[in-house]
């Protein structure tokens, strides 16, 4: 029987007690996820790896004083979001996913064994979805990326964004509504207009 992997919080504890290798374990666990979130927030560019490195470096510097009031995942995504926002503010990165630069990026998992037509349709749909998400206001995009693609819970997103839970749900609801409209315009199946939530 394989031993259970230590939780993030246990690894943080080990790191704070002087075990540097615990941070390596956290990096192995979170590096790809952070890169995925950054890719979806700032778009396809060589900046993704830089921003991910910057996020992990900041996490390393801050981890010794991390108070564990929030989950490690929320805290790490909070750093990643701040790094992305800083980059956009400085204007060195783009605040949107460029339609033209959405490259295929090689074969994605699940593409093996599919016909060429299916691949083209799939990649085309991928571009359209990326463009629709990129067209959202940043605050809605952040919530949709964290919820839909990173799989955070509403509570974790609220912690990462430092906003109330109801705000997270409202942003998500509105963002999904806009996405649905956008994708309908692009000929992708959707539904009727969405009224704003009352909360």
């Amino acid at each position, binding site marked *: 029987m394989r031993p259970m992997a230590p939780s993030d919080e246990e690894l943080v504890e080990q790191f704070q007690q002087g075990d540097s290798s615990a941070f390596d374990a956290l990096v192995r666990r979170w590096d790809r996820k952070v890169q995925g979130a950054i890719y979806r927030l700032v778009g396809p560019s060589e900046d993704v790896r830089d921003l991910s490195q910057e996020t992990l470096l900041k996490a390393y510097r801050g981890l010794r004083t991390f108070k564990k009031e929030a989950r490690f995942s929320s805290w790490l995504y909070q750093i990643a979001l701040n790094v992305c926002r800083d980059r956009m503010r400085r204007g060195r990165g783009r605040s949107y996913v460029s339609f033209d630069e959405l490259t295929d990026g090689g074969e994605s998992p699940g593409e093996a064994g599919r016909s060429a037509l299916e691949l083209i349709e799939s990649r085309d749909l991928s571009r359209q*979805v990326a463009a629709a998400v990129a067209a959202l206001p940043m605050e809605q995009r952040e919530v949709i990326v964290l919820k839909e693609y990173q799989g955070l819970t*509403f509570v974790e997103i609220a912690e990462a964004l430092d906003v109330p839970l109801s705000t997270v749900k409202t942003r998500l609801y509105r963002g999904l509504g806009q996405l649905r409209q956008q994708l309908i315009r692009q000929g992708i199946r959707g539904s009727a207009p969405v009224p704003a939530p009352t909360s």
Partner: protein
Amino acid sequence: MDCDAFRDEMMDLLYGEAPPAVAQRLEAHEAACPGCREELASYRRLRRGLAAWRVPAELEARARPRAVARPYLAAAAALLLLVGGGLVLRGSEVRYEAGRFAFRLGRGSGPAEVQTELAAQEARHRQEMQGLRLSLASSRRGDDQLLRTVQEMIAQSEARQAGLFTAGLERLEERTEARRQYDLAQVGVGLSYLDGKAGLQAARTTELMGHVLQASQKR
């Protein structure tokens, strides 16, 4: 539950985060209200569509643990295990007694047997060390081969870059020459135009002077 309340909590249901009691109420409303049912269904379809956006493969690639870089280290570890295991199987033992480590080779072996055993062991060790040396040498050969391959790749890359650079320079030169020819032609046209204009002006001046001269002579 009315439709507004349903919409307020629909995201919890959509993402499976509604507590059971809330989920039950939401599902009851969903079953009874065609509008809300369709709206929720449209969000479910949307979520399936959103799943089409994939991160490029290079970001998906999981960092794999590095293979053992030096095969001779693995071989050395294997040798240690082999020797240690052999000693244990033959009844040898290491004991901590009276504040000192004690080592006993084999079970109740006499001095002659011990000598034979030691000689055989030494022969085996020498053989294994020889094997290790060969392994180390082949590893170095492998490194040399890798180095040569990398150097060849660098040379090929440099050649490609040089080719691209030369082709780029040639294209730039062609474009510059074409531009120069075009500019020269433009200058030529401009000068001809100026020449023509100056000639016309001179003719008019001459004509005017003729008229003036004639007029002064008539007086």
